[in-house]
């Protein structure tokens, strides 16, 4: 797997998933389904991205009925810029993240604005 961007293929998958709707808060299982990563792979990546300030994380507001509140994630502005750069760097090699990457990710604030 090419690593010209400096990120692992799994991290690029996470970047691609979070870049689809950058303003939306995503939860872990949702990301796992989209990327195909197991929790033991996905969460260490999320932890690292949050530590580096590339991703924001927060707990779901309120107390949803029938389930515990979820932990939600989205890319920070710095993370979004870096993700796009990394995905573009990986794109010529035909990696899976490049195929999943949307043509034009929406700008923050255009989607899911009510939940921000």
């Amino acid at each position: 797997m090419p690593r010209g961007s400096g990120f692992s293929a799994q991290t690029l998958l996470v970047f691609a998933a979070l870049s689809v709707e950058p303003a939306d808060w995503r939860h872990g299982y949702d990301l796992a389904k989209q990327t195909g990563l197991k929790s033991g792979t996905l969460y260490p990546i999320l932890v690292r991205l949050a530590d580096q300030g590339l991703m924001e994380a927060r707990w779901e507001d309120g107390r949803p009925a029938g389930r515990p509140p979820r932990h939600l994630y989205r890319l920070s502005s710095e993370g979004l810029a870096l993700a796009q750069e990394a995905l573009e760097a990986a794109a010529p090699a035909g990696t899976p993240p490049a195929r999943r990457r949307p043509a034009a990710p929406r700008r923050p604030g255009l989607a899911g604005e009510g939940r921000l």
Partner: protein
Amino acid sequence: MGRALDGLTRALDRLLGRCGGLVPPGRRGWAEAVRAEAGEVPPGAARLGWLAGGFWLVAREAGMVRRIGYGLGTVAVAVAAALAVRYLWSGAHAGRDAGWDKARVLLLVALLAGLPWVARRRGVFGPVGHSIAARAVRAGGCAALVALVLDFARIQHFPGQSLSDPGGGAAGGWSWAREVAGLGLIAACLAAVLIVPARWPKVRPVLVAWGAAAAWLALSFTLAPLQVLIAVYAAGILAVTSRRSPVTPATLAISSGIGVAGGLLVVALHDPTRTPRAPGLHPKTQVLLLFVVLVAAIAAGTTTAGAVAARRARSTGDPLTLKAQAWQYLAAGPLTAASAALMLPLLRASAAVHFLANCRAAHPANCTAAPAVWTFFLVAGPLLGLAFGTCLSALPADQTPPKPPPKPPHEPPREPDHSRAGGFFVKI
């Protein structure tokens, strides 16, 4: 089957909730996040796998893999040391130099157990660093030292071999007076490093202490060379792998890895204790070959570790770049050489080659000099590595960022602010 799986999933969920407490307080939310999502995962194997991933996350965040691995390594070293003591006292190992062997193994056990405790306030020798590399190098190095002591005992019983013969570097047989004097000098040397800086903090403590230590070490080496070697190696392993060590995990991993590989390469090229693979090669040429491989390993380890450190330091923009790079170069040379020299097959092979070279050359008096080859590899290797690292550490100094342009002449000179802080000497 399904009911058992559900029961296992519930048990795992509860266990994950309890294990979350092992994670540092600021990071417990991540374990809770995995648990919170588990309800969304389809029941059965998928949910079980999800929770298992949560355990892996907890293990990573709590450093459990490192702790368990290091704990097992520590236990293995302790068991090996206990077995070595038992072997040397059991009567199975008997000979005119048994006293030396017992002294060496006792010294090693005392150093490994006592040094971190003696120097606990300054943290020079312990506790161990957080990285996997530091823990692996410390556990592996201590195990190699225990094996080395046993190998010293073993080679003494080769015909014509004795580490206490003149060729081995120490005169005469076992002597309590000389042993006590040698051990006393070692203790004084180690104590000087700790006591002088504490008692006379204004008298350039580091230089004085290390100068005195070097002098005592040189004197001790003439009395009990192998004991000094064991003491220096034990102290060195504990120092470079301690939490305060400036040696980065990458340097530790690269240097020790290349050193061990170099040692194995020598054995792969030629092990005269087994079937000779190069019968046409003169034994003295084989000795030279061993040394060339050792030098190549030192050069590769020092250069690679230093280059990696330099690349990482540049990418992070660390203001202590030059000092950090110099440390990596200085540490990488001795570390690579020591790792190669501690490979027992290398020592065994080199001793045997030297033995063959001298005995076949009609110089039977030199036959007892084979152990000197051991000490040569153990002493000359790290010294050579230190010299090589010192030369290489001077190279990054050339990359010093250009000084800021001089201030305009019309600017009035500033009053001295009496600050003596320097960028390279800021204490964190």
